[in-house]
């Protein structure tokens, strides 16, 4: 503790440089933590789907629909207790930047399969009773300042793009798990079908199983049955479906990790350069301290402590800044990243990286201080 004043005095020697370096580290750690949180959110999203629900989609791609006629046969597959379907509406509310996902669902069978959505009974009834009704997530209501009973208009990029689609918000759901997302909107499939010139068809089917252990055999039966049809299928558990949906983005994790590592090395060079400059400026002072009896080990400790104060302070600002900002704004990546949060595990990794930055950036100047030839340096100063 008695060396704190000495470390602090050296840090405040060039206040502007210290502050700018600290802010650079803070910005880098903010970016790192944000990118890592995207990865953890996507990883969590893979766990959202139920193991007792299966999804049957077109084997070519999810963007290709399936015939409505499959419903009857799928309902009769042994092990399947109920079947429903949904499709992507692709609506735009006022402006494309107001993006949020909307799904047209066969509500009477779909909602009972999703207990994750908590809907007040009276609202559920009103939603079921009205074709143009919309079921909206709590977060979406807050995002746009909507209220129950409000009429909103969407324009679909898929179905009759030249017309607007009016909806009335009749129900609001609250998810039991944040990673399910509270910025989704559900509308009636029947309304879409009738007003789209009857060419809307299911995008995918959702199947409820009586036993999750039968998932593999059910998938085989369904996919074998439609193998040679015009729309062959791919059936998988909802969790696997979520995973394949996420991997549509490509290897996001690898990309974000690569950017994170690039940021880390860039800031390592910045911090190391600052510490080298700081150490070079006071070569003679290090020689004086050695003359007074400061050991090599102590000088190494002082230089490393100085570097660590800069990087750890920057780390704390960056990591907790990200946590506070994302939690304060309830950021969900425009609905693409439901349940987005900076986890404590991510915060700890960020802070460990800050400590590592301090040690690595301070290592060379610390070693130089320890190896400094005192007599030669003092003679040069004199």
């Amino acid at each position, binding site marked *: 503790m008695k060396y704190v004043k000495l470390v602090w005095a050296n840090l405040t020697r060039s206040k502007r440089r210290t502050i700018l370096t600290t802010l650079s580290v803070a910005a880098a750690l903010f970016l790192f933590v944000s990118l890592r949180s995207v990865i953890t959110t996507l990883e969590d999203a893979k766990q959202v789907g139920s193991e007792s629900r299966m999804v049957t989609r077109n084997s070519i791609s999810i963007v290709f629909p399936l015939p409505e006629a499959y419903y009857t046969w799928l309902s009769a597959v042994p092990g399947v207790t109920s079947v429903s379907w949904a499709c992507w509406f692709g609506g735009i509310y006022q402006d494309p930047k107001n993006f949020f996902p909307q799904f047209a669902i066969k509500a009477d069978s779909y909602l009972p399969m999703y207990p994750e959505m908590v809907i007040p009974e009276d609202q559920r009834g009103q939603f079921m009773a009205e074709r143009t009704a919309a079921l909206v997530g709590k977060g979406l209501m807050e995002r746009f300042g909507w209220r129950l009973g409000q009429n909103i208009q969407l324009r679909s990029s898929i179905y009759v793009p030249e017309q607007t689609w009016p909806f009335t918000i009749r129900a609001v759901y609250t998810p039991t798990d944040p990673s399910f997302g509270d910025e989704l909107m559900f509308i009636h499939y029947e309304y879409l079908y009738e007003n789209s010139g009857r060419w809307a068809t299911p995008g995918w089917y959702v199947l409820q199983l009586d036993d999750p252990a039968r998932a593999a055999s059910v998938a085989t039966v369904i996919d074998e049955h439609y193998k040679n049809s015009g729309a062959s299928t791919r059936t998988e558990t909802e969790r696997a479906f979520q995973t394949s949906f996420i991997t549509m983005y490509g290897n996001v994790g690898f990309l974000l990790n690569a950017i994170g590592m690039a940021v880390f090395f860039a800031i390592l060079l910045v911090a190391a350069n600052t510490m080298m400059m700081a150490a070079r400026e006071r070569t003679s*002072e290090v020689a004086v301290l050695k003359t*007074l009896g400061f050991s090599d080990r102590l000088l190494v400790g002082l230089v490393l402590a100085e570097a660590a104060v800069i990087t750890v302070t920057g780390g704390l600002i960056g990591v907790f800044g990200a946590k506070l900002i994302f939690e304060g704004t309830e950021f969900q990546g425009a609905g693409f990243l439901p349940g987005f949060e900076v986890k404590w595990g991510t915060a700890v990794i960020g802070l460990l990286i800050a400590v590592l930055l301090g040690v690595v950036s301070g290592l060379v100047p610390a070693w130089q201080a320890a190896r400094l030839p005192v007599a030669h340096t003092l*003679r040069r100063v*004199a």
Partner: protein
Amino acid sequence: MALLEIRNLSKVYQRDSQAIPVFEAINLDIVAGEFLVLMGPSGSGKTTLLNLIAGLDRPTTGQISVSGEDVTEMTNRRLAAWRSRHVGFIFQLYNLLPVLTAYQNVELPLLLTPLSKRERREHVEAALEIVGLSDRGNHFPRQLSGGQEQRVAIARAVVSDPTLILADEPTGDLDAKSADEILTLMQRLNGEFQKTILLVTHDQRAAERGHAIMHLDKGVLTR
């Protein structure tokens, strides 16, 4: 018994393949309480000798003992600890840390001791009082005159009560009046506090303040 004993001390600098001898087979004894002055032309090796005595440099051959301890045999780590207890060094250019106040500069050597904060404060205040700067403890070096800076440097050199004070041209960068004050202060440290001092200087008037004068020239030390 002498406080400082130097036996057959030689120093040769190696520049590329060329050997540059500074001095050879020097012998010197300094008894406790002595105020010895070392003079000589530039490049004669005066500062090198001080650095060797303080353990800041290693001799090519020979032995240096302070209070019976062989300095030349110590490891760097032990040497640093020994220096903090036994040597007070005064530089020509003061070499105070500009980011620390006068008080904090004087306190530096005490940070290496097990003294408590209160004990350190007592020692620092006593040292600043001896050099007549009790009221300047909170001033930074840039707020002090050259003479005052050197007095702070002297306070730093004596604050840990070292066995030996080594002064390398401490008046070389000062005007006559300030130089006189510094020399008077050093005489007081020697006379009143029985400090053993080895002073390197070019200045004949400064040299006359010591008990004895030694000359180092062309590698030969003469009294």
